[in-house]
């Protein structure tokens, strides 16, 4: 059984981490990042060609985590696979012992390093969740029996900072109806806005794991505000980063991530820490956030 599912079901506040596979074949250092946080988080997400940039695959990386006793969350996007490949990869994942899948639309190919690639999007994320639910029931999407079936704990994403929020919430409801058992959110910096969002979706009764992205610099914060949908880093946080000496920046990054974690905790069932290569800071974040 998925430990992530077990913990969410028994009401524990969960912590998850994230790694991205290498651009190339040197995977060891990426796995070492996951090893660093192995005992601190319940599961580690593996991104699927994040930002549409070619990398090694999420599935193989999840398998390697699994072999090291680290529970993976297999991120799967609709960008690069049609419905045959999506279902096949889900079956393959289950065969490899992967229990958690996060179903995403995926960033558009034009944003990545192969902008001339054909964007697939045969499915949207709601279709993918539904397909996963159908596979769980022992059938494929066209109703054929499976010879052995998975039992995924499947999650989805939502962007609490989207403006307007209403279509996001409508889609979130559709994801729940399609079988989403938990949600991970876009990075939260505006806690008040996050709280308002949670109040609007409380009735869905689905665990929400808040996304916390580590702030590495004021420039990064401004960049995200300008470029990344659904991210609103308040001016106060940007100022805090600006006023921090370079030598203290990691300390400040930990302090902010820990503070955000503490602040969002009353509203959600867990925190997904996206530390962007600074995984070694996760133990300090957890300690300062006073989460055991």
């Amino acid at each position, binding site marked *: 059984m998925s430990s992530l599912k077990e913990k969410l079901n028994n009401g524990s506040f969960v912590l998850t981490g994230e790694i991205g596979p290498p651009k190339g074949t040197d995977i060891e250092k990426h796995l070492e990042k996951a090893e660093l946080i192995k005992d601190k988080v319940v599961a580690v997400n593996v991104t699927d060609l994040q930002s549409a940039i070619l990398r090694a695959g999420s599935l193989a990386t999840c398998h390697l985590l699994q072999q090291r006793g680290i529970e993976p969350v297999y991120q799967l996007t609709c960008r690069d696979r049609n419905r045959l490949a999506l279902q096949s990869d889900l079956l393959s994942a289950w065969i490899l012992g992967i229990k958690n899948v996060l179903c995403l639309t995926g960033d558009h190919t034009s944003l990545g390093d192969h902008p001339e690639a054909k964007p697939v999007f045969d499915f949207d994320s709601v*279709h993918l969740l539904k397909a996963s639910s159908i596979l769980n029931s022992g059938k494929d999407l066209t109703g054929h029996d499976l010879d052995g079936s998975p039992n995924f704990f499947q999650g989805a994403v939502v962007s609490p900072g989207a403006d307007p929020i209403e279509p996001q919430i409508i889609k979130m409801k559709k994801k729940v109806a399609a079988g989403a058992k938990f949600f991970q959110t876009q990075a939260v910096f505006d806690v008040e806005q996050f709280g308002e969002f949670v109040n609007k979706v409380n009735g869905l009764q689905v665990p929400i794991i808040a996304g916390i992205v580590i702030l590495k610099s004021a420039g990064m914060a401004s960049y995200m505000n300008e470029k990344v949908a*659904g991210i609103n880093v308040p001016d106060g946080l940007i100022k805090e980063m600006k006023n921090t000496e370079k030598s203290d920046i990691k300390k400040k990054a930990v302090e902010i991530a820990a503070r955000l974690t503490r602040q969002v905790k009353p509203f959600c069932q867990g925190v997904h820490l996206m530390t962007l290569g600074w995984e070694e800071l996760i133990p300090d974040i957890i300690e300062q956030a006073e989460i055991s």
Partner: protein
Amino acid sequence: MHATIQKEMDVILTYLQPDEKIYVVGCGNCAEKCKSGGPEETEEMAQRLEKKGVNVIGYSSTPSGVGLCSLPMCRKMMIEENLDENNAADSFLVLACGQGIHTVIDATDGGEVHPGCDTIFGGETEQPGIVKEYCSLCGECVTAYTAGLCPMTLCSKMLLNGPCGGAKDGKCEVDKEKDCGWHLIYVRLKDAGKLHLLEAYYDPKNFAKWSRPRSLVVKGTEATFKSLAGEHTVSRED
């Protein structure tokens, strides 16, 4: 209409052999509206090619308002009106969409053709000279649920169940100048008091209806659309 844009002269010249006898063919409908191959641009292309030393033995376009993609009209122009020149031609440079190119092959019983244009999309002429794409010719219109706006065209990811998380200020993640298709659909549905349509689940697209090539046969009051999804016949009689 089928929007087309002329290929650059340097590119067109790479298709032609020295001393090849070229006949330039244009279209008086869509290509005229796009100024890529109407009667005027066809004559102009013949002159431009001659200046580049190409052996142009003639040119013609279907009349204004008449599409080259009608085989009977194309045949009339190629065979009845310009037979000698067409017989003398080694090949035809077609200033029209891909349908027009194939119509010329049919009208000339397998003649050699060169594309003079790129066919870029099917579009709405918002005003003369401005054409925008609102339909992807997918074979199964879903706009009854999306306030008349096609998500297969207006959403970069062709999503059917609402927006992704990539839109910012109503603009798409692929281009901040481009409206998010689902934002437009949401606003129109909300204004019409029909947000319940956004709440419904829509199945994945049947891409077999978007297989190519497809055909349409109309007989009397019946029309039959054939694709890899099979034959679909609709009668206008209730």
